[in-house]
Each structure stands twice: as C-alpha cells, then as structure tokens.
C-alpha cells in the first residue's frame, strides 16, 4: 500500500488527485492537503470582479467530491516537509496546520510515499507597500477579493452616474509580476461594463503593466499569420487598446500605493505617480512558505526550494544570458533532483528562467514579467505526474514515465474582453509551444500554424463554455476524464 500526498487543490493538484485515484487501486491512498475548503475556477474570477457572476458560481466544496471519489481530504496548510523523516521515524512526512473551523490551529504529521507539491502561489502583496485588499488597492485573485472589487466598481459606477470623472487603474502591482493576461482581461471587462452603461466618457481606464510592450503577456509575445501577413500580438493588442480607448503605462514597477495615489518606477529609472479612484493591481507570486528539514533536523529548504520558494525540479537552473536560453532548460518530469518521490507541478515548480526577456532599470529594479504556468499547462502537468507516480507505484518503472515540458506543450488562452451572450467579446489565442523554441522554429520561436489569435463574440462563448466544462470536470462528474485539461 502506498500513500500519495498532494499539497494543494488548485487546477494542477486537483487534476493530479483525480487521475491518481483513477489510476491506483483502492489499496493505495490518495490524500489531498489544502487550506481551502473550496475549489475555484480562477479564470472566471474576473467576471465575479465586475459583478457578472457570484463567488458561488465559480467555486464548489471539495469535501463531497473527494468523499465520493475515495480521496482523503485534510483541510490544512502544509508548513514543512521532512523528506527523510526524523531520527525517531525514517518515513517521509509533511507537517500541516489545520485551517478548518473544527480543527483550526491543530498540527499533524502526515507520512507519504510520494509527494506532489501543487501549492500554487503565495499572493505576495507584501512585496509592494500598500498593495492589496488589506492596503489601498483591490485584487481578483480569490473569489472574496473579486467580490470586493465588484463592490468598489459599483461605487465608481455610482459616482460616474453622478457626473464625477473617475480614473480606474488596472494592472500589476510589482515589476516582477506574472498573470498580465488576467489584468488585461479585467481591464477590458471593466471597460465593457462602463461602456454598456453609457458611462465611458467620464472614465479614464488605464492599464499599468511591467511588460516591455503590449501583447507580451509574460510569454515574450506571439506572432500570428493573418490575411497574408505575419503580425505580432503587440500590434494586435495595441489595436484593441485604440479601439476601446484604454490608455497604457508600460515597463512599470509599482513602488507603493497610498489611498488614491500610486507611485511607480519605469524601466528608464524615472519615478512617477498616478492618482486613481479605483485600482485593481495583481500581486507578484512566490512559493508557499514551506520549510524542509533532513533527518537530523537540519534546515534543507535551500536544497529543495529556489530562493523564490518554488520547488526545484528537473530543469536546468544554470544562470545564462537571455540569448543562451534553450527550450530544453524547461523541466519534463517535474521530479525533484534531491528526492525521487517528490514532484512539483503548476505554479509551485521553479521555472529555470522567465520567458520574456528580463530587464532591469538603471536603479537595479527588475521590471519584466515572470513566466505564467497556469491553466492548460498546469492541468497537463498534474495529469502527467499522476501517470508517472502511478506507474512507479505499480512497479512498471523506477523513473517518471510521462513528460510535460512547456517547451513541447501548447496552450489555449481565451482572454475575455467583456461578458455578454450577444455583446460579449474575447480574444482567443493558441500558442505552440508555450516556451519558444528557436531551434525548431528559428524565426518566431513558435509554430505559425498553431499560434493564432482572433477577437469576437465566439471567443466569449468558448470562454463561457469552458467555465461550465471545467467545473463539471473538476466535480468529477461522469466522463470527466474525457474532457481535456
């Protein structure tokens, strides 16, 4: 009998848990540790943030699903990993602190045979003074944050109706943020809401980003073949900004946020400030605060985790200049090089380097996007790691059998630009591979046949359909495994 412990029940961890349960016999235990009692379809949080959906519509309780599937669930937060156990007991363990109302604050040690770290990001609001719902800006990272943002947006709408001009700043709250795509979506959803209410004239909508150019999205931008031309995601995105009258501040690192005013540094080293009536700024991410100890109790956190808190896996982490980055630097199996029974998937694994070109201001401030690793790639990683672990438990192999390199994986991204069954809009994009490979695709780094984008109502329908399909799949309803990640 083997026990697989999965830390985190987001897209990656939940997918891994469902597949492991499906692949392993009942003699083996699949155990999920998550501080949250609910699963959240995060891509739809932007619709909660404009009041188009309720928090309930994008979440569901995990416990009944896990009970039905025979997965053990501990509502707790992992705080430490002991991959060699301790001197009294050599079995690997995870230390957890319970977060459920009944067991709040209680601690426990859970032994494991295999460990999947799918803890996702720690929302690092503390990186920027005044950032976040506890400070002076808003967020749509969680359903609760998104509901709060919707409430603040309603107040802005009321002031606009009263004839007061309003400035809405939406973007990222630090120079090293990721998830520019989500900020882009929220910007255009807010713009759409204001326009559909006839209030656009008095609203100044500003997109503030750490991207070097619009359309970068943390993946170094894309090239599309359209109507006989090869065009860039930059031109494509700029066109949407012009069409919708949205202003942009690029190459910015937000330094601090005071009530109604934010201060930022730009890549040329200049400092500036911007007043606002509404600011939704996403935080930078770092790994969950997990410590690691060896058998003697020595702290080995630095061996298991990168300085940013993400788990080191089978990537090539040697420091090289941008020109020498290779697609093959990216991990394939997500296995820890230190412990063969530990894996890291989704946002929790440490990427070898960004995808966009890194840039630093004359003051030494890093102002460039961190690499995204959410959505479709996250789900695929969870599934492939589940297959590898199942094969290893069944004795079919001693090393991981399934690969999921982001350099050999495509991604489909639907960026909403306004909700509405008849008047909605979204940008549908596909790219292959996620990490550009200039050996296989020397000019653009990606396949022009499979990298594509279009704007329209149909893309909104697809996004809406995906909302229902992925929640259906996550609830492990009949046929769930037939739906792709």
């Amino acid at each position, binding site marked *: 009998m083997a026990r697989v412990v999965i830390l985190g029940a987001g897209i990656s961890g939940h997918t891994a848990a469902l597949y492991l349960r499906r692949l392993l016999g009942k003699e083996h235990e699949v155990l999920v540790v998550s501080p949250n009692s609910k699963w959240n379809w995060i891509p739809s949080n932007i619709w909660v943030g404009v009041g188009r959906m309720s928090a309930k519509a994008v979440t569901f309780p995990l416990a009944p699903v896990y009970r039905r599937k025979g997965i053990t669930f501990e509502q707790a937060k992992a705080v430490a990993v002991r991959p060699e156990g301790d001197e009294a007991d050599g079995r690997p363990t995870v230390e957890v602190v319970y977060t459920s109302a009944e067991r709040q604050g209680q601690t426990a040690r859970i032994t494991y045979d295999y460990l999947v770290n799918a803890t996702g990001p720690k929302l690092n609001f503390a990186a920027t003074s005044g950032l976040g719902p506890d400070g002076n800006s808003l967020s749509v990272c969680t359903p609760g944050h998104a509901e709060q943002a919707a409430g603040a947006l309603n107040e802005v709408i009321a002031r606009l109706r009263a004839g007061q001009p309003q400035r809405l700043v939406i973007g990222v709250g630090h120079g090293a943020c990721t998830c520019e795509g989500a900020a882009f979506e929220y910007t255009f959803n807010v713009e759409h809401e204001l326009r559909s209410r006839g209030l656009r004239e008095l609203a100044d909508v500003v997109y503030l980003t750490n991207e070097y150019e619009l359309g970068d999205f943390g993946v170094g931008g894309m090239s599309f073949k359209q109507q006989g031309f090869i065009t860039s995601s930059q031109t494509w995105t700029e066109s949407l900004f012009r069409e919708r009258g949205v202003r942009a501040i690029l190459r910015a690192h937000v330094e601090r946020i005071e009530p109604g005013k934010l201060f930022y540094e730009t890549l040329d080293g200049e400092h500036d400030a911007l007043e606002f009536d509404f600011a939704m700024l996403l935080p930078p991410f770092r790994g969950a605060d997990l410590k690691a100890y060896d058998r003697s109790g020595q702290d080995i956190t630095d061996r298991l985790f990168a300085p940013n808190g993400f788990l080191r896996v089978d990537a090539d982490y040697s420091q090289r200049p941008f020109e020498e980055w290779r697609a093959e630097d990216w991990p394939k199996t997500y296995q820890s090089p230190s412990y063969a029974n530990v894996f890291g998937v989704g946002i929790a694994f440490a990427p070898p380097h960004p995808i966009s070109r890194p840039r630093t201001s004359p003051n030494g401030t890093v102002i460039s996007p961190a690499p995204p690793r959410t959505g479709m790639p996250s789900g695929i990683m969870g599934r492939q790691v589940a297959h590898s672990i199942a094969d290893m438990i069944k004795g079919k192999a001693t090393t991981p059998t399934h690969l999921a390199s982001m350099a050999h994986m495509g991604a489909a991204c639907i960026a909403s630009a306004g909700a509405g069954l008849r008047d909605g809009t979204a940008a549908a994009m596909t790219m292959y591979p996620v990490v550009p490979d200039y050996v296989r695709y020397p000019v653009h780094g990606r396949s022009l046949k*499979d990298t594509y984008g279009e704007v329209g109502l149909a893309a909104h329908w*697809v996004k809406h359909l995906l909302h229902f399909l992925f929640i259906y799949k996550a609830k492990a309803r009949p046929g769930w495994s037939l739906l792709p990640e």
Partner: protein
Amino acid sequence: MDVAEERIASAPLPTTRTLRLRSNIPFQLWRFAVINLRMLRMIRKGH
C-alpha cells in the same frame, strides 16, 4: 506622448465591417466551430 501612447495612437483600427462581423451571430457561430477545432488540434498536440 510616451512610447505606449504613440504606438496605441497609430495602431490599426478595425473597419466597421470587421466590428460588425465580430458580433454577427451566424458568422460567430462559424468562428465558434473554428476556434474549437483549433483548440482540439492544440489539445491533441499538447497532451
């Protein structure tokens, strides 16, 4: 005018026909099928 503002100001604008097609239901039903087929192709390659 900074770089971003300059570029946005000179970005290509969609024609009235393009804008109309983006919300034209029959045309968008066709595009819905095309987007789904493209995504299926991506899924087949990426999985």
